[in-house]
């Protein structure tokens, strides 16, 4: 499925009264998506069920961000991030994602829950150039893993310059710009 969709410059906006919900198992395979997901991404339920969540990953997203996300989730900690996602028709939408590990009734780690809200456009404008630079770092580094490390190191520098930590930075960006507009 992945790779069949060609990205194009058309943005779709999420409604501020809605959020996208999706769930995956431990392998990252989608087990549930809500109707908002289907409406905005134009994927039908049967098209995404049991598919890897990266089916909606946009080529403009740096790999380093996902690497950081997995490191957080592995430590059973929630992850916040601004994410550009791909629709089935190649258009895209920005979200402010919150991904948390999910536990079953026995308290066993059974999957992940992702809740995505509409991000303030000012926050997206701040994050865009950082992601672009990260992508270009990753593109210019032949070793994939090394590229992710370097792009993350660049992000850390940007954070240090702003005298902030990653999670504080992304949450503050959301709050300071009035949450969803």
């Amino acid at each position, binding site marked *: 499925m992945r790779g069949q969709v060609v990205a194009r410059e058309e943005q779709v906006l999420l409604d*501020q*009264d*809605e*959020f996208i*919900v999706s*769930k995956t198992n431990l392998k990252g395979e989608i*087990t*549930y998506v*809500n*109707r908002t997901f289907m409406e905005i991404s134009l994927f039908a*339920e*049967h098209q995404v*069920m049991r598919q890897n969540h990266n089916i909606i990953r946009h080529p403009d997203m740096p790999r380093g961000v996902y690497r950081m996300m997995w490191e957080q989730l592995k430590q059973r900690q*929630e992850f916040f991030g601004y994410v550009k996602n791909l629709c089935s028709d190649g258009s895209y939408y920005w979200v402010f994602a*919150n991904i*948390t590990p*999910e*536990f*079953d*009734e026995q308290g066993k780690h*059974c999957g992940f*829950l992702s*809740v995505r*809200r*509409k991000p303030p456009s000012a926050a997206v404008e701040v994050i865009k150039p950082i992601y672009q630079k990260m992508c270009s770092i990753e593109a210019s580094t032949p070793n994939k893993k090394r590229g992710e490390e370097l792009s993350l190191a660049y992000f850390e520098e940007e954070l240090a310059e702003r005298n902030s930590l990653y*999670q*504080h930075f992304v*949450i503050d960006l*959301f*709050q300071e710009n009035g*949450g*969803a507009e």
Partner: protein
Amino acid sequence: MVTKRKSSRISKKQKSYTNIPLLRTQVAWAMGLISTIGGAMFAYTWLSTGFNLLVCLGLMILIALCLLTYQRFNTYLMTLDLVNGVLIKANQGQLGSRVTGTKGLGEVGKIAWELNEFMDILENYFNEVNTCFEYAARNDFSRPTFPTALPGLLKSSLEHINRSLDAMHDNVQFISRNELTSKLYLHNTEHLIKDLQGSQMDLNRVNEQINQVGLLAVENNSSAKNTKIAVDNISYSLSTITDNVTEASEVVSVLNQDSSAISKALSTITSIADQTNLLALNASIEAARAGVHGRGFAVVADEVKALALRTKETADEIALIIGSFSERVNTITAQAEQSIELTSKANGLIDDMQTSISTLLHTAEQTTGFAAAAKRQTAGSLSKVDLIVYKQNAYRGLSNSEEQGSIDLSLIDHRDSLFGQWYYGEGSDTFSETQAFAQIEQPHINLHQTVHQAFAMLQQDWQQDKSVRNAIIDEIAQMEQSSDTLLQAIDEMVLEQA
């Protein structure tokens, strides 16, 4: 609590299963009944009118329809089962389950989606609440909840939680600041009292030393006075000696004049004796010429000659004596003159000495004055430090009930306090004549009274009752007021005495 709630839910669930016949069973029975009735009708027509293919076909269609209906119904029921399962889990506190694959199930599918989205909202709401409180429990208030996109009550609930988190954050900061301030204050007073006690000791030492200086100055003063008397005596004796020497010198010069008059008289006597001798010689020549008649005269002339000779000899001897006398007188005169010169020099020295002793006397008197002023000043400072230490002990005792030493010192009677002991003792000796001294007693009594009252209020329920805490603070404010009056009066007293 959780387990209790769970068990009650389970019992309810079991109850529902036992009392209400399941829809699926009902449908199975209904379909079975319709098929059986159809079968019976077919058997009846077959027996009464013989085999009828049309009726047989109708029966087949009926049974197939029953099976199809049952199967279709079963799909709905399976979805409803899933919905039921999600709700049961939700009742047990598990919000993670969803119903999927409900496309084409009509109303049942719609219910399933509404349930899914209701669960999405609930799960997100509780996730938000749980997570932010997990952070808050670690004193991290950087993670707010995100009320956007949640509906109605849940949204406003998260907004309230965000405001509560902000308030908690402020509170935590306030509590920490309070804790810090009070700890700092404790450190401060502990050291302040120690420092002040050090100053107290220093001042005591300075006071003692100034006392010594004062004593020395007084001693200096009296010894300078004694020295002046001795020098005056010496000066008087010296001038007496000078007078005596001058007098003696005058007597000697008179003697000298007399001795030169004697010398003149002696030379007259010597020349008379010489002329007498010459006359006697002439007389003896004339007597010889007279012969016998002149014999008696010759004897007299010889006698006169011998007398003249003896006179001359005696006069010469006297002249010799007078000469050596005159020499000695000259020596005495020279010595007397030297003596006068020395004495006048000594007099000059004594005059200088007298001047410097007068200066010394004056500075010794000044030193005594300064020492006394310094003593009054340090006594004033010392008494002020005593009061400050008393107040610090009161603060310390009030803020920490375990500081028994400070509490005991705070509850002391005003007469027995260090300041009281000074005021009714040594201070009274030095300052009792000043006006300000009398104005000190009342504020000092007030100072002790307010502190005693503040400590009495600590026996009441000050932890719960804010009015008691305020009353304690009021007493302390009054204590500070009395202290200000008191300190000012001490300054005035020291100035006045100077």
